[in-house]
């Protein structure tokens, strides 16, 4: 982990006191017409919105709307892929004409999308360019809500503007870094950039948004009754949406259509479809769902004491890769996950154990199975009571579940382990099995160290600058048989927990943008 520079932190306090914000409202008539038609359709679909056909149709249209409302690229740009959206809408309009009375409005939606493609406008990009090219400062950042199209936007805008301005394209999570700029231009309403106003990273901040996504200055203060220099951290603002217009808009366009939010339910159901496992029934853990860069998501273990590998691109050498408790994970951090083939820690440990691995794992599985069986047959409450009587001071439902799982090794203390052995009737083997536990634990420790060392070494060679832009970096470690490890930026973490099979934990799965991107 790198030590933050006190002068950098000092700059942030100064910026927080003197930042200026300007809102630029951009008119995009055709998209406004599209949004109004989508609203009309949704309002007329009362009671039918849960139907899979209409769900798919509205999700497709909504996704197109949001992509256009948050991407400073021409409508026909290949990174936006709107041609496919237009085709899908046209096809669905034909079906809609046959099965319902909503055919005409769906057809009008498809026409609007086709016209958007034909006209090939880029109102957000035009507005952003006019701001950037009028600047006299040196460093600017163009902020997008999501990182998915950051590379395409960077390519379209270039890294140096004609006026010599150095431009970085990043996503909202970049605001959690300590980097500062002369100017930040954010694309989309400020609701998508939580800390843009509360913790500014530039003196001049521009919010470029479409008229259909009205915006106003969000409060910077977090407390209800507080004091600060000036008036409760009030910023200098200009150009915010006229309230009368916002009210008028609400009558023609559903606010819900324009909210930037992560649809956790859609992500979770997508994940279930892709990662079903035959052992799902047996071994459940509490998990959080994490949305990652490049349209991936992953369940992480949210049980007490669980942790994940994270990479800190700012740190040097050994400090670059570390284990972080799940509660400490926040958007903007980089998770290290296996994304293709290869081994997990246990498999690397087995390689260290060599020929002994089969025997040791077999014996381990024998007592784990016996414990699982005993807990099921006697009931968890009785099992816990008996374990405590036998001297297991840490007997709890969670711990018993952990001990029966193949992803944990055994109780930490020999006295607790001995109690478990007595409970399952393995008293005579206790000493031998405890020695095996120590051997396996040692191999796991070595495997973790080897993996970390290999990662650190790979990271020393890798170009980490791409991480800022794309939020992803893939690393191959063939020597360990670790397959492809990916460093992935956390974009969002679910507020709720899910109970899922242990086998789904740490297994990234891809998600379709239209399915979750509100």
């Amino acid at each position, binding site marked *: 982990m790198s030590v933050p520079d006190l*002068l950098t932190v000092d700059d942030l306090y100064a910026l*927080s006191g*003197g930042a200026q914000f300007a809102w630029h409202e951009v008119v995009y008539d055709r998209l406004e017409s599209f949004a109004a038609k989508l609203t009309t359709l949704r309002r007329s679909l009362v009671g039918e919105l849960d139907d899979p056909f209409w769900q798919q149709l509205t999700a497709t249209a909504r996704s197109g709307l949001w992509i256009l409302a948050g991407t400073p690229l021409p409508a026909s740009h290949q990174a936006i892929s709107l041609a496919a959206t237009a085709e899908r809408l046209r096809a669905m309009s034909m079906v809609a004409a046959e099965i319902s009375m909503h055919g005409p409005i769906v057809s009008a939606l498809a026409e609007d999308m086709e016209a958007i493609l034909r006209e090939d406008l880029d109102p957000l990009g035009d507005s952003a360019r006019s701001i950037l090219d009028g600047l006299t400062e040196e460093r600017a950042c163009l902020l997008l809500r999501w990182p998915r199209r950051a590379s395409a936007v960077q390519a379209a805008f270039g890294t140096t503007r004609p006026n010599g301005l150095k431009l970085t394209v990043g996503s909202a999570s970049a*605001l959690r870094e300590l980097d500062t700029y002369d100017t930040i231009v954010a694309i989309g309403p400020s609701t998508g950039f939580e*800390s843009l106003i509360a913790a500014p990273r530039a003196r001049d901040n521009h919010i470029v948004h479409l008229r259909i996504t009205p915006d106003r200055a969000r409060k910077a203060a977090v407390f209800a009754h507080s004091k600060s220099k000036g008036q409760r951290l009030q910023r200098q603002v200009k150009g915010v949406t006229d309230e009368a217009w916002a009210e008028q808009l609400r009558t023609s366009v559903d606010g819900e259509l324009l909210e930037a939010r992560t649809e956790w339910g859609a992500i979770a159901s997508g994940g279930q479809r892709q990662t079903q496992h035959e052992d799902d029934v047996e071994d459940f853990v509490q998990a959080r769902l994490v949305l990652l860069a490049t349209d991936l998501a992953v369940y992480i273990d949210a049980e007490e004491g669980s942790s994940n590998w994270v990479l800190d691109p700012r740190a040097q050498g050994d400090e670059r890769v570390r284990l972080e408790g799940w*509660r*400490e994970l926040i958007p903007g951090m980089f998770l290290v996950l296996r994304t293709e083939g290869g081994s997990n820690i246990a498999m690397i440990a087995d390689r260290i154990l060599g020929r002994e691995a089969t025997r040791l794992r077999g014996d381990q599985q024998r007592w784990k199975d016996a414990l699982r069986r005993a807990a099921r047959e006697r009931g968890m409450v009785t099992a816990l009571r008996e374990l405590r009587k036998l001297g297991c001071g840490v007997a709890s439902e969670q711990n018993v579940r952990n001990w029966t799982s193949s992803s944990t090794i055994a109780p930490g203390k020999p006295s607790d382990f001995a109690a478990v052995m007595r409970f399952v009737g393995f008293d005579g083997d206790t000493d031998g099995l405890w020695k095996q536990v120590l051997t396996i634990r040692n191999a796991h420790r070595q495997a973790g160290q080897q993996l970390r060392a290999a990662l650190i070494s790979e990271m020393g060679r890798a170009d980490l600058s791409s991480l800022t832009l794309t939020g992803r970096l893939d690393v191959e470690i063939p020597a360990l048989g670790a397959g492809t490890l990916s460093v992935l930026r956390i974009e969002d973490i679910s507020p709720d927990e899910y109970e899922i099979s242990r086998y789904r934990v740490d297994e990234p799965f891809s998600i379709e943008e239209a399915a979750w991107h509100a």
Partner: protein
Amino acid sequence: MVSFSSKPTYHRAEVSPSRPEGRVPSSRQLIRSIEMLHFQGSDWQPLRPWMRFFVELGSMLSTESSEAKRLVIGVSVPARPFAVLFAALGSVLMDAVGNGETSQDASAHFNYLASLPAGTPVSWHRGTNTVLGQLAGTRDLTGQTVLMIKTARGFKQSCSVGACLGIQVLDEDVQLPPHPGKGRPVRGRIPLLTELIPAQAVFSFVSQNALSALMIGTASQITIEAETGFAVPKGSHLLVAPLEELLRIRRTGHPGGSYRSSIVGSNSPRAAKLKNVEPHVVIFDGALPYLRWHASWPTAPTLVVLDRSQPHGDEAAAALDQERSLYRSGKWQLDSDMNIPDGIEVTGYYR
């Protein structure tokens, strides 16, 4: 060999009269200390207003709280680094400058040690070294009662009332060596310290344990920030020391070492074990540590630092606002001569 006992009890290890009633802490001394401190930017520079503000907030938590009313302060900032460390420095220095050792302290501490059972593990700071041992009762020697300390198997040494402030009770078991030894050197009495706190307070500062500030957050972040060097000019040169030495942060795995503050990871099993500890001040670094642990030290003055660029700030702020509304009679006003620096938002109340 030293092993950790299952139930930490190092609140006992603090010198009981570390903040005695009736003693007026020297705010003037603290302000002088802050004015002397420099940080390294492009060159060594006096502390910036926000840095000084946090040092003052930390000291204020100590001075403006009492048994009857504890000050709780919430602060939102544009970036979290260093804020909790400066606040901890305020609390640690205020405790130090307000607490020069006195003969009454020594006498009270002597009586406290004498009341503990034989075998209680202790560290004994003597001169420049620390010896580990066990209490072994008292004895009258030439008309004076002295404390007996067993420092090796079959070997005891006496300690007079005047010297007993160097003895601290440990929360870790001590295995006695077969032969008496010199012990380990006491953790540095760094020159910079003598510039920041009065000379008469330095000995107790380096040799006695007190938890003037407990910092809860992402331990790795706070720890690495604490390695940053600060300086005090002396004549034509500078005395430089890392912040961790000024804060005398408790080091795990160094039994018997003295400390004045501690950093605990909010995800660490240690955090749960610390519920029995009575820190003078608790400082939360971020929303999640506060939301998770704020109920653990209801009687301690508290500072919560919320980074406005991080998630969950609103939840923590709402929790603080809610508690504030419960203590309507506990209104708190920031000193009128204390300017709030750019980018900082402050709220507070007494509970």
